[in-house]
């Protein structure tokens, strides 16, 4: 490499670059000139791959030879709601094998919506001497045997987080495989495990790890074992309880209350399965220090929730069931002025009639009372344009707004009009809105608003909405920063998709299921856009056994530099040049 008239030697540049952490900035640096590109790629330590099929292990390794931290995401978001059939893909193994060979000093692996096998976990356990962080978020495919390998071999493990993964729980013994000499645990999240872990081993582990800050237990850890655990880790900052119920006994209660009070650093609480309301007061002493509270499994009624929430004056994040009702949200609005994020989940999502007194009013109250509210996820059964308008005007600082009106295509319950104007107000007033999920009765007009105002929008989720291709066209042509678009059950078809084909290369991915996109259009898209993978999913057989005008079941389009993937199951067809030629 030519060392022309540089002001700074390489080492100095490298040192400067080490202060640049954001991926976007790193990318900008690498584009300045060839030598900066070279320096940057050798000193890049952390990489985020939003779609594991957008790139391949060899490509990644070739460009970044010295990584310490890799994050990969696999399946599309709608996989969370069972829209992606099993076997679709997102296999971690090829990545882990490749990284095992290339990055002996790898410290962190974070995977989301990927299929991880025990074999992969064993490879991780044996290949990386300095392995520190394993986060498996909404993953599946592994058992507690794989966890045992991690526990037994990763001497320097700091974090083991299995959040929301599907683990085949063969036995709780794996926890005992952490050797007695192992003391470096800082964060443990086993909340998704079904069976009981070895409680004695857990207690010993917790008490011998002085840096343990996060402990999220699973439902099977009984409440009466919690005080011991807490006493073993008074420095805990984040706790997820197990089942929060036991026979009501005063000694158990006071033991618990004392143990909680001893955790002066505790800021985050979650868990709370099977809550026996009379045990809730045990946490009252620490409520005033809480910044995050996840009660989304706590099936207790509004009065109990109100008592709890009204004590949490520093609360920034609340996840709760709709048992809290409008009244409870009004109290929340009055008590928690620092609230940044609210998620209200449905207690009876499939019931036809409302089972709780939670309406749009609750959200309006919070939007009025909580000036810092930025992020909302709200399930309810009725909404009005007026309410949405009020919310938008109250909270122009919203960055994430996800509203789910449970009955598809519900109109404004007051006027029976579509909710176009309401959502329009949201995108118009909330200029920094990055994520939006729509619901209710919506016409093409709402998409016109979104295309016009949603300039910072990065992710949009649409279901049962719109009238025609114009809707999709508005979004694709108007939303300059759109990265992820997921659509289901909308009358969007070929025209908008093909007219905006180039846009798709600027996005991470597009999902369309139960829409009106024809197989023929998918072929055209695949043929004309070689840098996109156009994948058609159809469980009723090969799409070419039907007329070209037949709509495809599911379409997943994503940009890639790795070409069509080779691990597709039988129900996924790729519309690349070769296959198109073969079929026609």
């Amino acid at each position, binding site marked *: 490499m030519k060392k022309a008239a540089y002001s700074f030697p390489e080492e100095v540049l490298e040192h400067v670059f080490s202060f640049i952490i954001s991926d976007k900035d790193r*990318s*900008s640096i690498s*584009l300045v000139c*060839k030598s900066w*590109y070279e320096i940057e790629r050798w000193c890049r330590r952390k990489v985020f791959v939003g779609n594991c099929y957008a790139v*391949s292990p060899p*490509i*990644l390794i*070739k460009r970044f030879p010295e990584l310490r931290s890799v994050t990969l995401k696999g399946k599309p978001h709608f996989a969370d709601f069972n*829209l992606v059939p*099993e076997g679709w893909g997102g296999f971690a193994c090829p990545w882990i094998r490749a990284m095992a060979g290339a990055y002996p000093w790898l410290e962190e692996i974070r995977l989301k919506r990927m299929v991880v096998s025990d074999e992969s976990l064993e490879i991780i356990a044996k290949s990386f001497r300095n392995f520190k962080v394993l986060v498996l978020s909404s993953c599946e495919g592994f058992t507690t045997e794989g966890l045992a390998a991690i526990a037994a071999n990763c001497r320097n493990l700091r974090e083991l987080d299995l959040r*929301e993964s*599907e683990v085949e729980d063969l036995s709780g013994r794996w926890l005992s495989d952490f050797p007695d000499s192992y003391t470096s645990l800082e964060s443990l999240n*086993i909340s*998704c*495990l*079904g069976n009981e872990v070895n409680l004695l081993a857990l207690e010993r582990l917790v008490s011998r790890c002085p840096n343990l800050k996060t402990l999220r237990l699973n*439902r*099977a850890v009984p409440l009466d074992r919690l005080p011991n655990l807490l006493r073993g880790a008074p420095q805990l900052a984040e706790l997820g309880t197990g*089942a929060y119920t036991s*026979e009501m006994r005063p000694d158990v209660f006071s033991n618990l209350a004392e143990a909680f009070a001893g955790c002066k650093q505790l800021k985050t609480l979650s868990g709370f*399965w*099977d809550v026996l*309301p009379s045990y809730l007061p045990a946490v009252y002493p620490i409520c005033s220090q809480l910044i995050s509270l996840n009660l989304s*499994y706590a*099936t207790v009624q509004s009065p109990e929730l109100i008592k709890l929430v009204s004590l949490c004056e520093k609360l920034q994040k609340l996840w709760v069931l709709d048992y809290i009702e409008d009244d409870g949200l009004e109290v929340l609005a009055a008590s928690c002025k620092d609230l940044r994020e609210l998620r209200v*989940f*449905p207690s009876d999502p*499939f019931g*036809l009639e409302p089972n709780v007194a939670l309406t749009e009013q609750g959200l309006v109250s919070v939007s009025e009372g909580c000036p810092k509210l930025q992020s909302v996820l709200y399930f309810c059964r009725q909404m009005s344009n007026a309410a949405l308008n009020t919310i938008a005007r109250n909270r122009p600082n919203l960055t994430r707004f996800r509203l789910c009106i449970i*009955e*598809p*295509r519900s*109109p404004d319950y007051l006027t029976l009009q579509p909710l176009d104007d309401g959502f329009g107000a949201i995108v118009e007033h909330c200029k920094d809105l990055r994520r939006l999920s729509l619901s209710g*009765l919506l016409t093409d007009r709402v998409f016109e608003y979104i295309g016009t105002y949603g300039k910072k929008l990065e992710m949009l989720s649409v279901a049962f909405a719109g009238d025609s291709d114009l809707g999709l066209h508005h979004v694709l042509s108007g939303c*300059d920063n759109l990265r992820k678009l997921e659509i*289901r059950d909308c*009358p969007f078809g070929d*025209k908008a998709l*093909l*007219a*905006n084909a*180039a846009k798709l290369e600027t996005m991470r991915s597009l999902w369309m*299921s*139960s829409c*009106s996109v024809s197989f023929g259009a998918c072929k*055209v898209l695949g043929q*004309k856009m070689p*840098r996109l993978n156009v994948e058609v999913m159809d*469980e*009723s057989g090969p799409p070419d*056994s*039907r007329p070209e*005008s*037949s*709509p*495809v079941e599911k379409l997943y389009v994503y940009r890639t*530099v*790795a070409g069509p993937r080779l691990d597709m199951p039988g*129900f996924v067809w790729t519309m690349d040049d070769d296959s198109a030629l073969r079929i026609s």
Partner: protein
Amino acid sequence: MDESSRNDDMKLELRLAPPGAEQQQQHWGLINGIRTTTKRDESSVLSLGYFPHATITTKGSPSSTTTSSSQAAALPLHNNADKKVFSPSSANTAVPNTSQKRTAPGPVVGWPPIRSFRKNLANSSSSSKPPPPPPEHHNKDYGGGGGKGMFVKINMDGVPIGRKVDLNAYDSYENLSNAVDQLFRGLLAAQRDSSGGGVNKLQEEEKVITGLLDGSGEYTLVYEDNEGDRMLVGDVPWHMFVSTVKRLRVLKSSELSAFTQLLVLFSVGGKQEKDAT
């Protein structure tokens, strides 16, 4: 934002090749994602004259957009004055028989958009009494585990792709049987109809799957237990079934007796079937 500044912004996006690599076209690996949206590209796509004769309906009732996704078959035809929902086919049905569950809409797959482990909270936990003692070393998940469901695989004769069901979502054989019907009814019709054309045909051909438990129907529900044996669903109390079931199968009843004979002769249970498929 004008074209040139948009192009500039696009050039600054993360790529996996050095600047100037646009010219290299040899290998997929070297081609980075070129973001420049030239008018030429767009118009070339448009000018292909794709489907001038296209008959895709881009408007219209929700049911025309449903493909073979059978679980969405009961999309409500929204009538503002009337909150009850009916699918097109059930609206034409006469008096519902006992297995006809169409007065309420069948569950739409993936709606409302909540994770499976959030689905059954109201039923699975009772805040008024303590939980049962943890099970002794069974393979069963503890009552929904960490809020997680108890998913077992279920395959059906004639349907190539298996499914998973969350047994914690049901508390009786009858509910499970109904769920199996809902799950596979449309898929089965799609299989029968896979040679045909249009979408709308599917909904008319869907037949309710009945008699899963008593041998009276075209299909019978069987399961594989934790010892690898193939058993008829329905013999033991529900909670015992849940604690020993490993996977489910929906077999054609006509093949069952032959299969039962095989079981008796070979006593190999599940492996036999895996080899056969």
